[in-house]
């Protein structure tokens, strides 16, 4: 059994994949909780992650789908970074291989958290180890040449869209990761990356001959997804867009479905309709990594109209639509744990009471 865990951190992403063989992959890390606010229902991500790791202090792959704060907040405080001594030592968690889109290396003008992670990604790329970069725009070759590195020497660290990531494979890990984005296209002006944005991957798990497919779609907009569907279908790779679990993009923003929000329900563009309605498998699970769904119209996601669409998809599949900040209840959200076994995906639903009391330390007792 593999475990996919989505943490309840508001409008932000962090997904931990624990494989049956003990290997780990973490997609994004954004510790968003305000420790001074007792009413903040977002989880203490660092604590939750460390509890999952136990005595383990290294994660096989940590992917940063892009470097917005809601995908990497406090990463520099928690992880051991190779590029500077001040981010090393103590109880920091090591990253065996870091996955980033090319833009995480190339982007200029970034600040704060993103700048630190960019420095780490650049350091690993220049050193030639512990990193995988997704997509190969011309600018990436230029980045290397500027540093007197022959681009072909780093080719093994770069994955193009439409390929499998070599860090995991079905034979030894019972999982494979297929990268969909960022993808590059040849134009008259050379190779450019059409979408300057995020990592979009499909993971296929295999347990007792049953394949269970997970799509992690980060914050991409509908135009990008439209492009992914177009390119994937052009290459006759439809199965690479099937899903049993779909982490819907951008915290249920309507912009990831269509140009228009819609009055009650967002009407997705055709290729997205195909992705959700045709490619979703029976009893599939849609996960919105977001704040609770508002009843009124809002500017920021989640947008209720987009949610209404996802809910309908879930209903038609006989599946579930789950919001991380509403699971299992709005009043007391907890990380969403999905088990992947020989009968597909299953949301773990464990009641409290005595099991909760003996699973956690008791408050302090004593004679004073």
């Amino acid at each position, binding site marked *: 059994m593999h475990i996919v865990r989505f943490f309840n951190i508001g409008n932000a992403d962090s997904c931990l994949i624990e494989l049956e063989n003990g290997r780990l992959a973490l997609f994004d890390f954004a510790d968003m909780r305000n420790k001074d606010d007792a009413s903040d229902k977002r989880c203490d991500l660092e604590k939750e992650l460390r509890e999952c790791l136990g005595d383990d202090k290294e994660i096989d792959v940590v992917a940063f789908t892009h470097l917005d704060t809601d995908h990497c907040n406090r990463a520099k405080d928690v992880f051991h970074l190779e590029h500077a001594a001040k981010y090393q030592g103590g109880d920091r968690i090591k990253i065996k291989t870091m996955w980033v889109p090319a833009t995480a290396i190339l982007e200029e003008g970034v600040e704060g958290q993103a700048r630190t992670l960019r420095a780490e990604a650049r350091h690993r790329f220049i050193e030639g180890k512990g990193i995988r970069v997704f997509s190969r725009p011309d600018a990436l070759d230029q980045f290397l040449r500027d540093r007197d590195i022959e681009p072909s020497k780093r080719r093994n660290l770069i994955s193009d869209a439409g390929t499998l990531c070599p860090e995991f494979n079905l034979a030894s890990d019972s999982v494979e990761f297929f990268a969909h984005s960022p993808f590059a296209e040849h134009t008259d002006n050379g190779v450019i990356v059409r979408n300057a944005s995020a990592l979009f991957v499909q993971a296929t798990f295999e347990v007792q001959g049953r394949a269970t497919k997970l799509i992690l779609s980060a914050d991409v907009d509908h135009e990008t997804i439209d492009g992914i569907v177009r390119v994937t279908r052009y290459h006759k790779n439809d199965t690479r867009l099937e899903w049993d679990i779909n982490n819907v993009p951008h915290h249920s923003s309507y912009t990831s479905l269509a140009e228009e929000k819609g009055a009650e329900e967002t009407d997705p563009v055709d290729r997205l309709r195909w992705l959700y309605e045709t490619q979703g498998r029976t009893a599939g699970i849609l996960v919105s990594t977001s704040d609770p769904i508002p009843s009124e119209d809002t500017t920021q996601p989640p947008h209720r109209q987009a949610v209404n669409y996802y809910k309908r998809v879930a209903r038609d599949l006989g599946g579930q639509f789950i919001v991380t900040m509403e699971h299992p209840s709005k009043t007391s959200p907890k990380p969403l744990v999905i088990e992947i*076994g020989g009968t597909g995906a299953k949301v773990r*639903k464990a009641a*409290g009471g*005595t*099991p909760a009391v003996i699973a956690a330390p008791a408050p302090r007792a*004593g*004679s004073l």
Partner: protein
Amino acid sequence: MTAGVSEASSKLAQAVVGYLTRSVDHPFATLIKADGCELDIEIEPELAQDRVVPIQPVEPLRLVFSPGDVASPLVLSLRADFPVGLVHTVRDRGADGLSLCVWEEAWQDLSRTLTAQVLIERLRDWLSRTASGLLHQDEQGLEPLIPGTAHTLIVPAGEPVGPWHLVGAVEHEERWTICLDTHQRSDSEGLPRFALFSTVLPSQVHGALHARPYDLGGLLKLSDELGGNLFTEMRQWIVAPEQLAHAADHYPLLLVSVPKRRTAEGPDEAVEVWAYQPVGTLADFGECLGLTITHRDNGKVFTGQAMLPRLVKDLSTIELQGWRVVQRLDRSTARAHSAVPERADAQLVAIGAGAIGSNVVMNTARTGIGAWAIIDDDVVLPHNTVRQSYGDAWVGAPKAHALADQVNHLFVEADATATRADVLRMEPHADKLALADLVVDFSASPAVVAHLSDRQDIKRAASIFFSPDGADLVILAEDARRTTRLDEIEAQYFLATATAPGLAGHLDAARIDRIRYANACQDLTRPLPPWQVQTLCGIAAGQLVSLVGSTALTAVIWRLDPDSGGIVPIALPISPVHRHTSVDLRIAVSKSVLTMMADLRAAAAPNETGGVLVGTFDIIRGTVNIVAALPAPPDSRQAPTYFVRGARNLRPIIEGMAAKTAGRLHYVGEWHSHPVHAAARPSRDDETVFAYLSRHLDPTDVPYAMMICGERETWLRVAWQGRVSLEGTMSHTNEQ
């Protein structure tokens, strides 16, 4: 949600409402409507994507509780498209929905540990296992097509085809148990006159229990649905000369046989027989149907075929009474006769005359140990002859009478008495338990152990039972002064089962390895070779004889290795107890718990230490038996003025103890030590711990205790939802 539960007279319903509305952690169930004893809830089971049965992530159910919680709650599905082909369901049970067969245990036993949370978790688990196809596994016997009913018909073994003859009939509390045989017996004169109609319907693939028809229209409709031609055959039968000849003084009994198979192509594996009795005589029945006419003339009665049969418009007006039908096993058993040394005389009561009771009573009775009073509310069924002391001739007779009769046939002194009753429902003055030197419980029912423990008027009680796999014999007996009561011994027996290496696997087979033997989900028994029963009962009989001649407490398990036949006795350590009572709570703390805490406290000094408490509880009686104080988990923090109990490995330990005791041992609270200079009384921090327990555990309807072990005494507080909480202290003087 709409309110209204205050009118409920079911404490369990109220507890469920409390759990669903106040649970700290999401209970994965939501209260939609509470209306007295009826609760509408939505259950969220754990479901994998691939489901054998299409259970939904949210299932609407209605729970119908019985006033006073005297019976198990009905569980109805409120979903119109709930998959009706499921097993473990009863169709058309009222207009409210599909009734789910969730409970397999006797309610009086189940209700003792059925907290609100356990009830909800049971429903979630039932739905999850139904979805995954685990609820009805291949090796399980085929479902009976119609649930059991009042009268019982015992039919011969083999393929049930007539002609059948009535060979025995016993009536008790207006319920008949009737035996049929394939040939007439000479001793069956004077039995009630029944006219037996029998037919065989086409083979059926088994599935959900069909609704029991209560009228002829319903039966004929069901017969039609199953491809039979019942009506035509029955009409021909009624007007046949042999029926007409005695129509006025015979009662019709309609027997319908249905061969059953697992798949449409598969072979028939079993035959189910339904029996129905219309109201009145065969002549009345024939007239109701418009087929016959009966004339009475000068005291003579003539029944003839109606010349112009009139058509009966509504056959549903002809009521039918359904009978439970049980088929006899092959007659292939012989009883072992073993000699047991003869001993003294005593007044003894046996509760339960089943496999253990009948064999042990017979065995001890042969020694001339004394006079047995036998209490049992069951009748002998065909399969009982394999392991119980009854022969085929006793089938249909009350077990208590059968056993007493067997005992009374041993010797000239025929002083064994029989009472056909459930001991839990008898008036104390009527059950004569107080007159006995020893009351022996053979029923393997936690409810009976509880009942005997509570009775102040009896002289001494013992319980003799088998482990669920039938390989171990357990004897628990109070000392002659009743210093430690049976339930307190039982709780410590569970602790031994969970912790003693020599008892590994003792209760592991609980609730598995059972086979079905009659037409109800609850009628379960276990496959068990007779030699094993006889061997262990022989030991039990010998021990019982010794017990009567001794005043000491006894707690011993004999483990039988079925392969080699080797038997090892294991004596259980039983400690005296401290008792604390309030208006509605009774707490017993084993003195060994105080010793465990004091030893751990001394080892940790000058630091404080602590851990969790383990015990049993009984919701019906409001009792808690605290039997163990576990040491601090390794991630605990210990200091001279405080203790923070960690959690590493704790859950597997507690769950392991539950698993090894058929779910009887539970976490029941927290303990910690106070140093020499501090009193064994709660500090402000300690009150925080108790409030924490209250917040988490009160909504789940389980008891929770806190104990503080000081230098000279231990302080205790126990609370339980809706009951007056209790505090007390226990001196260490006797423990040090």
